[in-house]
């Protein structure tokens, strides 16, 4: 198989050459950030912080890492509105999915 195609598409699969370069540069920055944040997460574990602080910190770092992956690796920063509407609907359904089982634990019945 040849390394390059004979009739190159002018649109670069819908992306300009500059856009692709920007995506690649961003990918390297995000990679560095993700490695650094992984180091922070593991480092925080060895600090033996109070339980609530440890949970808050670990989840905050995980959310930050997840946001970086979604925005830059999954190209959400330059995605169409329709995708955001789909994700918004998912989020609306996701929050009750997480909360409902937990709320059942908090729903204590006091017998007299």
């Amino acid at each position, binding site marked *: *198989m*040849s*390394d*390059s*195609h004979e009739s*190159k*598409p002018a*649109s*670069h*699969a*819908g*992306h300009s*050459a500059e856009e*692709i370069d920007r*995506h*690649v540069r961003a*990918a*390297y920055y*995000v*990679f560095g950030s*993700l*490695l650094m944040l*992984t180091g922070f*997460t*593991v480092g*925080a*574990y060895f600090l033996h912080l109070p339980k609530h602080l*440890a*949970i808050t910190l*670990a*989840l905050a*770092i*995980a959310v930050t*890492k*997840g946001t970086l*992956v*979604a925005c830059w*690796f*999954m190209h959400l920063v330059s995605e*169409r*509105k*329709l*995708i955001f509407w*789909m*994700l918004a*609907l*998912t989020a609306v*359904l*996701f929050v009750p*999915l*997480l*909360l*409902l*089982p*937990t709320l*059942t*634990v908090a729903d204590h019945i006091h017998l007299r």
Partner: protein
Amino acid sequence: MSMEIPYTVEARPDTGLTNGKIGIWLFLASEVMLFGALFASYVMLRVGNAHWPPGATYLNIPLATLNTVILISSSVTMVLAWASLARHDFAKFRVFMGITILCGFGFLTVKYFEYSAKFHHELFPATNTFLAIYFTLTGLHGLHVIGGMAVNGYLWGPGSKLWKTDPVHFTNRVENAGLFWHLVDLVWIFLFPILYLL
């Protein structure tokens, strides 16, 4: 009579997206709900258990950290594989996609050693609630890694024939496979702290 799937290369006028892109995002949304249900189960089990063991009691943090680095690296090589195609450099695509697949193998190999150590010490899903949810979450995630590797392997091998006849369509397929692979990475980013570190 040929029945070609419409809008695999050019965007649909009404959505501004290819059908493949919409399809993969709908699938990812369903995946979020699947893992969301299991994360909710984890929270419920943990909150309802008075003596939840720290992850390090049973699990190996250095190995899990290594696996985190492997998956993050594979996400970058996946982006580079797609970017290589967008720049019409098929040879580089094969290199980066090959590295992505190898990273998948690396992740599963580390997981194999982790699981083997548990079984060797007679730690099974039935041993306690923590191990039950640990094996369920990491097992399902592992199946997703295998699924992603199968798709990536197809695109690296036999599926790459499409590059010769329809390069834009092939590039879009790689982008969509990449979206799934990044979700697998995203799920691990949350699994790592909640199972191993908290």
